[in-house]
């Protein structure tokens, strides 16, 4: 028996709930798994006939974006173990459009959480919003919409509501298909008149875009953030029976109070920051590259000079630090099975510290508007850095323990460790406050230095100190860390990734 897991997003409008979209490769955020109910699924499976559970999944959608665990997959496996059912995983890459063939039989339940272009539900109703709107045409369960395409789709049911606050959205422009410019779409609108809506309709980027009413209701906000309801259901067997797993509400990355609403020059389109308050996609989904530094970064070169990130060239040699860790020693150039759990100490770092050269192998950049993290130190200086930058720190609450950590996971009480190029000493600054800051038109970079992964970024305190940063992994080409850890490690399941943060990563 075959089943397909479908994630569907909904919003309230008054007492009505309306569908935004549905997907077969819908992400399940790890911390949301606790709100799903697997009981109906396993009540159906535990019939004494099914002995094998096959799970076909896109790893990028199964592993939580919020931490490194495979919570949903683990929950399925545990249930199977409890019932004595054999559990078998079939992983596909995040951009796969086909799935491996698992032969069906009465003794198998084959669950798919991945896109399959050969399946009607996927290719028509998940991949194509116009197909879905056409399917649901006449239903009160979809937002009022305008769409028109040369392949025969047309709808225009928008009854513009201008009887709302001047800063409240009443329209949204979306792409028909999943591949679109995430910096621009969905584009959120506040139309003041019918003429403005008509003008937008006439000036859509192409016929592959639709305009819908923006669904407004107080129930679409929790703790000052906009939220979307996401349910998960399994359709199975030839007659498309349904197993409901429940769902959760997921919020935007920033609260509504983060910034005042402002518009682009047209006075209709919400500007980039204002739009962010309504977008519930995970931050990393916006990024095309797993960046770890930005155009403000100056790097210590091997000759002691400072090279700006925007001018450094492939083949240039930078200064890299070497020091031993208590666990995980990948800086030596040898793959390390235990880097995932790596940590060190202040004493060991200081006692074993030396420097060497490492060569830039590749550099990738992307310009974007995005959220960064501002860390303020006890001396009132601060650093602003990208959330996926990985820096060497002394951990909060410890006088000795050190580790590399992502800026997005820093804690108040952590100390950023600095290398002093004049004295070769290690100094530290304790973080006293952490906050989000919006960055306009920032250029972000992904660098790959080999054979040593550490590079030194000028603290710009004028004292010759440099923070110690680590290569990010982009081997899998994913826009976020599908392994859940941002860095290369041996648990990365992508075909061809050997883990360890070495050559080619």
């Amino acid at each position, binding site marked *: 028996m075959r089943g397909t897991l479908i994630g569907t997003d909904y919003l309230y409008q008054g007492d009505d709930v309306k569908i935004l979209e549905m997907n077969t490769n819908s992400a399940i955020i790890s911390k949301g798994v606790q709100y799903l109910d697997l009981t109906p699924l396993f009540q159906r499976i535990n019939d004494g006939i099914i002995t094998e559970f096959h799970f076909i999944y896109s790893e990028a959608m199964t592993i939580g*974006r*919020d*931490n490194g665990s495979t919570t949903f997959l683990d929950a399925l496996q545990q249930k199977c173990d409890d019932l004595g059912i054999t559990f078998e995983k079939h992983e596909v890459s995040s951009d796969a459009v086909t799935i491996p063939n698992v032969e069906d039989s009465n003794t198998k339940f084959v669950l798919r959480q991945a896109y399959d272009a050969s399946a009607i539900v996927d290719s028509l109703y998940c991949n194509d919003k116009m197909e879905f709107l056409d*399917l649901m045409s006449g239903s009160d369960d979809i937002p009022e919409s305008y769409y028109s395409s040369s392949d025969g789709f047309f709808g225009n049911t928008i009854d513009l509501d201008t009887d709302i606050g001047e800063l409240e959205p009443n329209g949204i422009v979306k792409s028909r298909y999943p591949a679109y410019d995430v910096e621009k779409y969905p584009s959120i609108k506040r139309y003041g008149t019918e003429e403005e809506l008509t003008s937008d309709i006439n000036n859509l980027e192409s016929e592959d875009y639709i305009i819908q009413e923006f669904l407004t209701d107080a129930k679409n906000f929790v703790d000052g953030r906009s939220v979307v309801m996401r349910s998960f259901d399994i359709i199975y067997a030839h007659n498309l029976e349904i197993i409901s797993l*429940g769902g959760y509400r997921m919020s*935007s990355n920033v609260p509504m109070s983060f910034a005042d609403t402002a518009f682009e020059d047209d006075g209709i389109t919400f500007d980039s920051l204002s739009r962010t308050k309504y977008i519930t996609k995970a931050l990393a989904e916006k990024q095309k590259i797993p960046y770890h530094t930005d155009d403000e970064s100056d790097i210590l070169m091997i000759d002691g000079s400072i090279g700006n990130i925007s001018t450094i060239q492939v083949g240039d040699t930078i200064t890299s630090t070497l020091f031993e860790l208590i666990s995980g020693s990948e800086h030596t150039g040898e793959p390390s099975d235990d880097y995932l759990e790596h940590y060190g100490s202040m004493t060991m770092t200081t006692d074993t510290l030396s420097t060497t050269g490492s060569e830039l192998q590749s550099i990738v950049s992307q310009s974007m508007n995005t959220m960064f993290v501002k860390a303020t130190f006890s001396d009132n200086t601060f650093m602003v850095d990208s959330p996926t930058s990985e820096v060497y720190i002394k951990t909060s609450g410890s006088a000795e323990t050190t*580790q590399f950590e992502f800026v997005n996971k820093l804690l108040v009480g952590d100390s950023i460790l600095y290398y002093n190029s004049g004295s070769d000493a290690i100094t530290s600054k304790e973080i006293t406050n952490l906050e*989000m800051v919006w960055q306009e038109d920032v250029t972000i970079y992904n660098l790959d230095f080999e054979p040593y992964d550490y590079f030194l970024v000028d603290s710009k305190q004028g004292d010759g100190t440099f923070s110690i940063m680590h290569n990010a992994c982009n081997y899998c080409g994913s826009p976020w860390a599908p392994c859940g850890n941002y860095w290369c490690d041996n648990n990365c399941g992508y075909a061809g990734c050997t883990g360890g943060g070495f050559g080619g990563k």
Partner: protein
Amino acid sequence: MRQNRTKEIISTEIHPLLSADKSKLDTIFAEIIEKIKEKHLS
């Protein structure tokens, strides 16, 4: 010992569905599937 951290500064917050929400979503999803069945299985 490494501190393995799950909390992030920039992060999506997750909340449970209200029980009234769940029944509404179940009803609407069933309508979607019914329409797909009408179009492709009938």
